[in-house]
Every structure is written in C-alpha cells, then in structure tokens.
C-alpha cells in the first residue's frame, strides 16, 4: 500500500511538472499602451484578439486612428476565419480544459463592436461601401440570438447601413425602416444627404462578464447604471443634444443561451457527481477498511474504494466547467450618432456628457478640432473616455 501511495505522489508531481509548459502571461501594469504590446508579443496566442480589441479602442480614444486600423484589421481576420475544426476550441469543450483555453473572439456584442469601430475608420477614409460592409457584419453578429425579437436589433448599424447606401446613390429606406422598428427610445431621423459631419459617440460603462452557478459554469453579465445618459454637441453655433441609439448592456443580456452553456452545464454536473461519488467512496471505503481485520478481503476492498474515491475527487477537481469571462471591458454602454451640415474647413466641436438630469459633467467635457473636407464626410469619434483636446 505504501508503494502505491508513493507511486501516486510521484505521478501527481510528474503531472504538475510535465504540464507546466505554458509561459505565464506578461505582468500587467494597468497602462494599455504597455500591456497590450507586451501581451501581443509575449502573451498567449489565445488572448491575441482580446488585446487587439483593447488596444484598438484605446488608440481610437486618443485619436490615433491610423494606429487602430491595422490592429482591428488583424483581429477581424481572426474573427472572420473562425469556421470549421479548431483544435483549441475543441479542447475547450473537454472536461478537463477551461473554456478560456480557446482563442478569444468575443461574445457577439464584442464582435459587433469590433466591426462597428472598423466601420467608423472606413467612413473616415471615404470608403463608405466598406464602412457599410462593417456595419452589416456588426448587425450580422447579432443575428442568431435565441429569441427572434432580439435578433438584428442594433439601431445604429441599420441606420448607418442605410445612410451609407443613400450617400452612395442607393435606396437606404429599407435599412432606415429596420432601424426605426428596432428603436426602443427616440426614433432615428430620416436621412439628410446634405449632412457632411458625423460624430460617433459612445459613453457609460459597458457589460462585464462574470461566472455564475455553483461551479462558475454560467456566463453572466454585470451591468452598471451609466452616470452619462445623453450628449450635447456644440459646433459652429449649432447645439444638438443626442440620445443613445443602442445599449450594449441590453444587447449582451438579451442574447439568450449559448451552445457552450449546455456543454459547461454538463461538465458542472459531472464535477458535482464525481465529487459526491468520491466523497461516498472514500467514506464507505474508510468505514469498511476500518471495521474489517487487516489483510482481509474487506480491508482491501475498503482500500480500493478509498483509492477510487480519491481518483473521483481528482477527476472532479480537474474538471473545468468555468465559463470564459475574458472581457473587452473598455466597451461603452451606449452608442449614439450626431450629424451636422458644416461648411468645409476647420471647426472645433465641444462635447458635454449629460447626466440623467440633463446636467453637463464638466470633468468629461471634450474638445475636438477637425476639418470638414470638400468632397467627403468629416467623421469624428468621441467617447466619455477619450483624451482631450484632440485633433482628428
């Protein structure tokens, strides 16, 4: 029996040592412009897209659009090619592998936002058809929600699809009508083709993921009430108050269940069952071994039961039903769009983020200097997290 215990210990040591092949992720400093490049260079490949999302948004928020573009492009390449057999994804469904072992591409609302931000950059570059493609792909990410009423229900993506179509000489009314139908608050305005300045806005804290359930097998979202509820824009004597068109907290929490939730639920049941059976086997084996004479058959059966119980406990402990809670945490809660007709030339936009009472929050005020070109739209992106002042 002593030999068995020694062999077991040696085995466990080997398991521990033999599996320590994955390099730990680089330590985080809290500065995205240090952490993201370090993670992209030396961190696990499975987190690459997550760090690209984070870095791209941080670049957008300090007005470095040229830096954000290639990062988003690379992330979207991974996102668009996630079809078919995928070894990491397959492993993440196994009993003893955590879901977070798969290559991150994000939940549908995160994927949609990656396309949305890329669409803004295409519009800035004057490629309206590619911008429209991104807004369509963004909406497409939301097209398989469990409940039909929550499918394809981003307002802004449809609105921008139609606006781009109209500006390209097509008929955007279908998309506009879909946007109006999806709107839960203020209805989006009809298209004004003379508008030449688009202000993309996002604000408030977005959804954060956490693992619920007894074994962390349920993916849940934590949402907070945003201190900002609307935005006031001032430029060249025009003052416009903009309400949110979309709420990412709503989008994240109305998706319904995932296929992966069923896989994780099954693993959680296995973990609980193996743990309970392990307890019962250890207890039963101990009683049997303790109450029977040494070297008797009952004593040995008792020892065998205890070993089986320990193995059951090991299997339970090794089962990883935890949901993947890697999150693009910098995402906003609200998306909005401001539109202006402005003469070509340089302008300064003042952005005030308003609380529920309509009062501006001075600490969040932004100043953006931008130029309206002659023959295409000026496209500005502002978040309550943006640096200020900026020139875009």
């Amino acid at each position, binding site marked *: 029996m002593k030999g068995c215990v020694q*062999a077991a210990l040696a*085995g466990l040591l080997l398991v521990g040592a033999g599996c320590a092949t994955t390099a730990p992720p680089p330590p985080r400093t809290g500065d995205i412009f240090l952490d993201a490049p370090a993670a992209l260079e030396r961190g696990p490949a499975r987190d690459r897209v997550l760090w690209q999302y984070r870095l791209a948004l941080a670049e957008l928020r300090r007005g470095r659009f040229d830096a954000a573009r290639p990062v988003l492009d690379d992330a979207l390449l991974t996102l668009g090619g996630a079809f*078919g057999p995928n070894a990491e994804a397959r492993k993440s*469904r196994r009993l003893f592998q955590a879901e977070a072992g798969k290559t991150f591409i994000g939940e549908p609302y995160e994927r949609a936002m990656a396309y949305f931000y890329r669409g803004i950059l295409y519009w800035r570059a004057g490629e309206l058809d590619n911008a*429209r493609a991104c807004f*369509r792909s963004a909406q497409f990410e939301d097209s398989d929600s469990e409940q039909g009423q929550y499918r394809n229900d981003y307002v802004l993506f449809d609105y921008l699809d139609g606006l781009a179509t109209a500006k390209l000489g*097509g008929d955007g009314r279908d998309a506009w009508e879909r946007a109006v139908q999806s709107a839960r608050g203020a209805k989006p305005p009809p298209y004004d083709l003379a508008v030449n300045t688009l202000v993309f806005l996002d604000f408030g804290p977005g959804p954060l993921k956490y693992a619920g359930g007894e074994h962390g097998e349920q993916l849940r979202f934590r949402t907070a009430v945003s201190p900002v509820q609307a935005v006031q824009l001032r430029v060249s004597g025009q003052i416009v108050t903009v309400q949110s068109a979309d709420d990412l907290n709503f989008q994240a929490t109305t998706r319904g269940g995932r296929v992966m939730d069923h896989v994780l639920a099954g693993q959680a049941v296995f973990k609980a069952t193996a743990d309970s059976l392990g307890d019962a086997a250890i207890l039963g084996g101990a009683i049997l071994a303790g109450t029977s004479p040494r070297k008797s058959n009952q004593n*040995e059966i008792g020892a*065998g039961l205890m070993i089986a119980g320990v193995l059951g406990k090991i299997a339970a402990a090794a089962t990883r039903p935890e949901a993947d809670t890697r999150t693009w945490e910098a995402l906003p809660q609200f998306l909005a769009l401001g539109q202006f007709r402005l003469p070509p030339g340089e302008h300064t936009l003042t952005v005030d983020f308003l609380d529920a009472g309509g009062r501006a929050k001075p600490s969040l005020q932004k100043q953006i200097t931008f130029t309206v070109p002659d023959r295409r739209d000026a496209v500005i992106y502002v978040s309550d997290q943006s640096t200020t002042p900026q020139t875009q």
Partner: protein
Amino acid sequence: MKKHLRKSFPIVVVALLAAGCASGVKNPSGVPVTRMNADEQGFVAGTGVESQDLVAVTDKMARSILAIPQIANASRPPFIVLEPVNNNTRFPINKDIFNTRIRTELNRKSLGKVVFLDRERMAALERERNLKRAGEVTSSADPNVQEFLGADYFLTGELQGMSTRTKAGTSDYILYAFRLTDARTSAIVWEDASEMKKQGLEDAAYR
C-alpha cells in the same frame, strides 16, 4: 489484490499524464509555409471574398469582355476607364484588387485590343502637364495640345451579398457583376456575373 493495485498504479499515473497534458499546443513546431495557387482554397478559409474567388471572377470577366464584338471587331483599340468596384456585401474588401487583376488580365490576354486610361493618376498627370506648359520641365511634344484621352467605355463592377446565420451555421452568397457601358450612349454593351455561395459553422465553443 495488493499486487494488482501496485501493478495498476503506474498505468493510472501514465493515463493521468496523458490526459492532463493533452492541453499542449497543436503544431508546437509550427506549420511550414505552404505555397498555394491563388485559385485554390487553402486550409484557412472564411465565408467572405477570398483569393480563389477573385481569381475565378476576374478570369471569367476578362475572357468574357474580350469576346464581345465591340472589342474583338473594333477598328481601333477602345479606351476603357475602370471605375472602382462597389461593395454591397457585408465583407469589407480591398476593392482595387479586383480592378487591378481585371486590368492586368485584359492587358495580358488582349494583346493591345483594349487600352486602359489611367484616371487614378490624373492629379499627377495634370501636374506634369502644367509643369511642361510652364516650361519648368522638358516636353517631347507641344504641351498645350490636349492629349488626355476620353473614355469609350466604362467598366464597372458591383459585389452584392446575401447572408444567413442560424445555429446551424453561416451562409454567404455573393454575386460579382461587371458591366461595360458605352460612355457616349450610356448603353450597356456587355454584362456578366459570377456567383459564389459559402457555408460554414464555427466550433460549438463559439456558438
């Protein structure tokens, strides 16, 4: 019994090792670069526009254009302006690549039966002409004579898409339509299309 336990323990340990270490990276030594033809589907694929589609579509269009009487029987090579492709799908693409490949294919296969006008470089061409007119650079001909050519035809393309996504997978249909329009009469003298449909399903871990 004890003997059996002793014997079976190493097996259990090895099994644990094998199971526990199954999380290792696939292809830890990487995959060597695989040279592929641009018209074949690789092992990395999505449902969007890919190189094999580009090659198939532009090949077909180039062959089709050269066969029409307006080109094949023209008394002089017609002047053609390529307009940027209009992308009406859900896939952002590099649109210039379609025009570049069609133009190079036509130039390669037509042996001078068509002439493309370089409207993309008009700003640089105008600047050069103005320098010549100002006498700031040399000129091999009278720079005051208008020699920029007008188009006989416009070649335009449009990509249209239809996409479906359900729990069963993603399906994308893309129609690649090209047409040649007479610049004088606005008559469409040639039109052809190519269509592709692709379906795929992500691993359940992503659904």
